[in-house]
């Protein structure tokens, strides 16, 4: 589904991503973990075309998409959410999802139809899926943080993505919100046969959700494997727990 090969990116003299390679198969749930500044967000931005790589390739669904513009990646079936919640805060919850549907279904170039009537049922269906139907008329920016994250998921799902990249999906959530939203995410991923790639600080979330884990440290992949293997990996323990070799 996604194949990253020898990806590299430097900012000035600092190499943020250094020779990173990994692959994700269809339907997998993969977490990228690593301490602050390990390069997780940079890696995301390289994959999604927000940043240009200095070297290396990204292949998505057997196609070279290195440096491809975000809107084109999106059309190919890649969805993403952002670390800092990224919605349309002054539009209503319903409009957020409806506009995303209009954009994804390629109706955005239509200058003559009435937009209000488009994709109403689908928008309601999506809001039901992310449990926001009762808040459809609210202005999105007034929702609670957890609800905004749900809405962002709804916006991403509007594109019927095959691969969903989630940058810290539970950042800033309470324990209860985190549990609920990961359960929601897992259910939706299973229902829609989604491949998930996410970054996360909360190790409970990572080890309970991910099927595979990629550990990033100072821009390099230092370990990769199933949760049990990662848990006992020496390098990972050293990075996270400060243990000596």
């Amino acid at each position, binding site marked *: 589904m996604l194949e990253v090969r020898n990806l590299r990116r430097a900012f000035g003299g600092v190499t943020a991503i250094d020779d990173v390679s990994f692959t994700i198969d269809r339907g997998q749930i993969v977490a990228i973990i690593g301490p602050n500044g390990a390069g997780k967000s940079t890696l995301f931005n390289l994959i*999604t075309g927000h940043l240009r790589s200095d070297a290396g390739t990204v292949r998505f669904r057997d196609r070279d998409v290195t440096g491809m*513009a*975000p*809107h084109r990646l*999106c*059309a190919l079936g890649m*969805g*993403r959410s*952002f670390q800092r919640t*990224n*919605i*349309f*805060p*002054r*539009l209503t919850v319903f*409009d957020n999802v*409806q*506009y*995303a549907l*209009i*954009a*994804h279904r390629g*109706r*955005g*170039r*239509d*200058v*003559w*139809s*009435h*937009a*209000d009537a*488009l994709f109403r049922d689908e928008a309601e269906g999506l809001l039901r899926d992310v449990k926001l139907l009762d808040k459809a008329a609210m202005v999105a920016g007034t929702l609670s943080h957890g609800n905004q994250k749900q809405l962002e998921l709804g*916006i*991403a799902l*509007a*594109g019927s993505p095959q691969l969903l990249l989630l940058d810290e999906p539970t950042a800033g959530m309470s324990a209860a919100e985190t549990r609920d939203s990961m359960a929601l995410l897992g259910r939706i991923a299973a229902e829609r046969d989604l491949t998930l790639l996410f970054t996360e600080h909360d190790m409970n979330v990572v080890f309970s959700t991910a099927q595979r884990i990629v550990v990033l440290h100072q821009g390099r992949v230092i370990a990769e494997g199933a949760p049990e293997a990662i848990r006992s990996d020496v390098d990972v323990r050293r990075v996270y727990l400060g243990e000596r070799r």
Partner: protein
Amino acid sequence: MSAINTTRTWSRRIPWALVIWLVVLSVPWMGSRFYTFLATEIVILALFAVSLNLLLGYTGLVSFGHAAYFGIGAYTCAILMKTHGVPFPIAFAAAGAMAAAFAVVFGFFCVRSTRIYFAMLTLAFAQIVWAVCFKWNSVTGGEQGLSNVPYPDLGWMASLPLLGDMRTADHYFVLVMVLAGICFLVLRRVVASPFGRMLTAIRENPERAEFVGLNVRGYQLAAFAIAGTFAGFAGALFGIFNRGVFPDFAYWSKSAEVLIMTILGGMGSFWGPAVGAAALALLSHQITTVTQYWPLVLGVVLIVLLFAFPGGIAGALGSVRTRLRRHRRA
């Protein structure tokens, strides 16, 4: 409660835009040359301001050079009609096409930069247009501009009922009302279309818009071209109304004027800029008869408005209406 609801839906069902259009259309029958003159000017400037608002209010792009397309439209129409004797319908269409073409070319570069750089680039292109109009004597008449732009041939209107014994200026006003009316209808339709909604999404959050699959620059360029086209139509109408076209039409002060109209009227609503155009034209005509310090008065009005009613006149009226409604309900 139910009574209020019925009055509300009832008042909503009235096509207010059509009512106001009919009222404005009746101005020539009031018999005053001056009112017809003023109404023609206001309607054309309203179209100019509403076209700018497609960028400013709907797409979130601050153009400081919208007069360029107004000027291009005015010159195109005037040169074709005066120098080449082309009939008005063709000259008018050509004005829009020419403005659109220039908007596409200039816009291509402008949408590549953001915020203040976008504003400065639009200004720079507009100043180039102004300089060309100012210097290209053989075609544009240079500093002197082109005077005596002919009226379109509107003799046929005299055979229509009610329009029989009208002056040419009145006939021209009717033509302006019809053409501007069509332009308003089209623009209204565009902003309510899926395309218009995507512009709003881009205004609200360009980064997110990109990742719901929108080619943000492409949409911005399309909006720029549409806004330029309608500014070109407004310019074409204005050149004939003014009986002449001058380099001023593309000067930065003209761009500032339309920006002020749009903000004064309220860029949060479709008709806000039209209200702003009317307010500015009426104020300037009233106040210049009393004092020569019109810019001073304008400055004060703007400051008060921006601090007290950041939504412009239309925004202020809107909030008064909601407050009244709440009051009645309580």
